């Protein structure tokens, strides 16, 4: 577990992350397991990140630390602009922190080159975006296999697995369809399959229901949680929706760049 410098706001945040009453059976998680290095898959230590905005430096994350266990579902709760997306981007290695370190399954992401980080990402990270972000020039099937294709690891097993996932989300008959022909809910279901088809270590979901209506939100969320649970994947989800956060095994709240804890009961 990462140690925080004294006097900083987020002292021992990871240790204080609490267990939410399990509402979904597979998400049962015991805090003492956090101390077991073999079960910690994401370890963030003292990261800070700032952006230049209209000539001014704006600090989005300040000395944030967090540890996430294997198979855990962690909700990152915060209002718009609080830094949720930035935190996920840093964990996914698509952005780099100004300071601090990020270790995923024993690999220190922050010490890798851009290319090495990209290789790591396409093998071990799955991503679901708020705006779905399907590649418009690829069909559903090509979108799903994209990370594996980029890795050059598409084989019969991978295809079978991807096809089964697509069947599971109810889009087995849309393989040759281009994204623009799909509804928002369908696009997000494809995005979820894409995030899981290459069997990543962790899945990062950034407001996956933020652009959907209530009905589609529920369906997409249910699919995402179910598929990650069944595959035993670790899920970090950014959301501002308290209802969704309450379904996580742990909740970390982001406010003014700082990660803070909140009891499940307080997530109203």
């Amino acid at each position, binding site marked *: 577990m990462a140690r925080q410098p004294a006097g900083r706001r987020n002292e021992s945040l990871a240790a204080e992350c609490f267990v939410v009453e399990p509402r979904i059976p597979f998400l049962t998680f015991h805090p003492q397991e956090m101390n077991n290095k073999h079960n910690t898959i994401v370890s963030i230590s003292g990261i800070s990140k700032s952006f230049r905005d209209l000539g001014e430096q704006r600090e989005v994350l300040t000395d944030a630390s967090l540890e996430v266990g294997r198979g855990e579902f962690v909700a990152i709760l915060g209002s718009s602009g609080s830094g949720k997306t930035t935190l996920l981007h840093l964990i996914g290695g698509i952005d780099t922190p100004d300071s601090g370190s990020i270790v995923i399954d024993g690999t220190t992401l922050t010490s890798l080159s*851009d290319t090495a980080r990209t290789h790591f990402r396409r093998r071990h990270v799955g991503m679901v975006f708020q705006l779905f972000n399907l590649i418009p020039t*690829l069909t559903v099937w090509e979108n799903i296999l994209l990370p594996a294709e980029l890795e050059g690891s598409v084989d019969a097993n991978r295809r079978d697995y991807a096809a089964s996932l697509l069947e599971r989300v109810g889009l087995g008959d849309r393989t040759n369809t281009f994204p623009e022909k799909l509804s928002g809910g369908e696009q997000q279901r494809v995005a979820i399959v894409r995030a899981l088809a290459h069997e990543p270590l962790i899945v990062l979901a950034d407001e996956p229901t933020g652009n959907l209506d209530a009905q589609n939100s529920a369906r997409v969320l249910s699919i995402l949680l179910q598929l990650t649970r069944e595959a035993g994947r670790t899920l970090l989800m950014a959301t501002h929706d308290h209802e969704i956060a309450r379904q996580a095994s742990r909740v970390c709240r982001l406010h003014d760049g700082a990660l803070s804890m909140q009891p499940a009961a307080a997530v109203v």
Partner: protein
Amino acid sequence: MTGAVVSRLVYRALQRRVLQSVLFVISILAGVALIVGVDVAAESARRAFSLSLASLQGDATHEIVGGPSGVPSSLYRSLRADLGIRTGAPVIQDTVRVGAAEIPLTLLGIDPFAEAQVRQYLAGASTATVPGVEGQALLRLMAEPDTVLVAQSVAARLGVEPGDQLALRTARGRRNVTLVGIIHPANELSAQALASLVVADISTAQEIVGSPGVLTRIDLVLTDAQVLADIQGSLPPGVVVRPVESNRSSLEQLSDSFTLNLQALSLLALIVGLFLVYNIMSFSVVQRRTQIGMLRAIGATRRQVFAGILLEALVLGVAGTLLGLAVGYVLGGFLVGAVTRTISDLYYRVEVQALTLTSLTIAKGVFTGLGASLAAALIPALNATRITPASTLRSADAEQASRSRADVAAVTGIVVLGAGLVLTQFQAQSLLLGFGALFLVLMGSVLMTPLALLLVMHLVQPFLGRAIGTLGRIAPRAIARSLSRTGVAVAALSLSVSVIVGVSVMIASFRGTVTTWLDGALTADVFISAPASGLLETVNLDPELAVQLQNLPGVSQVLTARDVPVLAPDYPGLPPVNLVAVSDDLAERSRRYLWLAVPQEEVWEAMQAGAIIVTESFAYRRGISPEVNTLNVLTDNGVRSFPIVGVYYHYGTDQGIVLMADPVYREHFADPWVSSFALFLTPETQSAHVVESARRLVADQGLNVQSTGELRTQVFTIFDRAFNITAALRSLAAVVAFIGVLSALMALQLDQKRTLGTMRALGLTSGQLWRLTLLETGLMGLAAGLFALPIGLLLAKMLIDVINVRAFGWTFSFLVSPGSLLQAVLIALTAALLAGAYPAWRVAHLTPAEAIRNE
């Protein structure tokens, strides 16, 4: 929404899209600069020629001219004595080569007493041996033989001062004269007029050119019609009085076709620029759909949206136009050397002392720059007005709309192309209409490009997918998907490369035809002539030289040619006829004819009996046909009619030639001189030996002695020089297209930012992204190159069959080399890849998080 709000929005829009704004400005700048540059160069040459004519003609309203043998001096005396004409001045005019550098200048022989009536610059100028002692120089000029005056600028160029000796060389030999004074022009106009003159007294000039008792012409200032009638009545046969203005305008139009061709080519660059501006403005509107929708929601009218987009284009257009005018003026300075060199090679000797920027040139630049900016922004602005307040159209939908517009564009293209082809059938002599047809054909072809691009990308996508994988599938689909930008960029590049193909094929075809023509025309072994000095100057060589040449060892036969301008009264608006009288036919058998009224083997026989043959361009300009087959020429015996028995292909001059048998010429003109010699050698003789001995023989006259090979090389040197500027303009059009592709790729990259960011997030390495971008660029370049081939070949066909015929009266074979086509495709590919390098580099360095976050 007030005008201030619209202005503020326009200002912010420009501020936010600096790169696009810069590319817009560059597009207009390049187009305007080319137009202005070519215009400045052409206009400067034209003005210099006009000034030189004006300096030689002064205030004369009429001139008395004769045939090649000139006007007898006695006529001037009888005009003064018998008719009391006081406002006339005798003139001797010839080209002399001055000093060790043999700088070609015009020798003007004058009568200083009569001169003040006609040429004010000399009377008004101070002519002093030393400044302040005026009049002394003019006295010496009249009193002392072999004395001359020059302007200060000429003296500086020659590095001489009063008292110095000057060596003048004519085709008749070398003569030393003394510079007795410097003319200090009274004004700038006089300075320009005097900048290429050597002024001598009439008797000195007659001695220098070897024509005692003969004048080149008599200049007259006439206001009384009766006096004119009296003069006409007193003239001997073969001498006429004519208004100088008509002569001047007919001479000035000599190079019109050449300069018009250059201007048309420069206009092409602007059309490519037009595409770019359209591309930039379209993208700008697509990018701001949401913002425009919001503006409409809060009360902006369609008119205000329209005005906002046009204002934006106008602001950038003004910047591009102003910069284009400045750059164009500088470019004109670079181009003027090449333009004047070619005009001097092909038409008349001209020296440009100062660049001319006329208000017409400025107006052309402003009109085309602003016009192109607004015209190109018109469709995007109209599209912007169609955005409704409730519009939720995404970029993809807009692209879908642009795909359906590609169908409409293709159909429109077919109609426009057809109209262009039909237009070639009308007004068979109008060059402007020919260019109109050419532009319609080009525009029509280019309008079909977006649909063709869509089809090609559809065809190559499965193949690339199998060969390269995911990236191979993405690239053609991305190009097809962003058709509103890629289509226009490929169209602009196709247009540019098709110009390269068209002009290259035309030049190669022309060169090939000239090669074949020279094989037939250059049947002699050695040629002797005066250095090239343009169409308007006559070289007088002593025919006795033929006897001396005949005596050189190895020479079997010497033929002579007399090359003189003569007047054809039936064509007063056209320049004088270029008559060539030959002592024997050099190429009767090998010459190719357009038509013949007698069997080919009897042509020379018919010519010896008084018939003439003319070149294709001569016949074209004068409407000569098997039915219209006589030419009236002013001879020393008056106007005589000559039957035309054939029209032959000839590529020596676009003004055309009349070929006459030498005995027939001598019968009609009392002209003792010849202009050039052709030597035939005995079979065992090497031409190099004869060339060497002939050079020794004619060393004093400064004549050119060339073997067939050397003459052929010289012909092609002039040929290539004439097309140098065309080649340069062609390359500049390619540069404009390069900027277009760059701008389109930048726009495409901006458009694809989120997709590319997502792909990076999903595991695409920066190297793969770099390859993807270059693959897209390469595909666009390859497609543009392939599309450019049929368009370019069609362009070449029209340049050969329509433009060249109308501009120069030449027809030539259509010769295509596969190498040049391959080269064109490679140019397009290279231009696209080079243009893609920067966007690819930017994309490769894109932080995925930033790309996604910006969305």
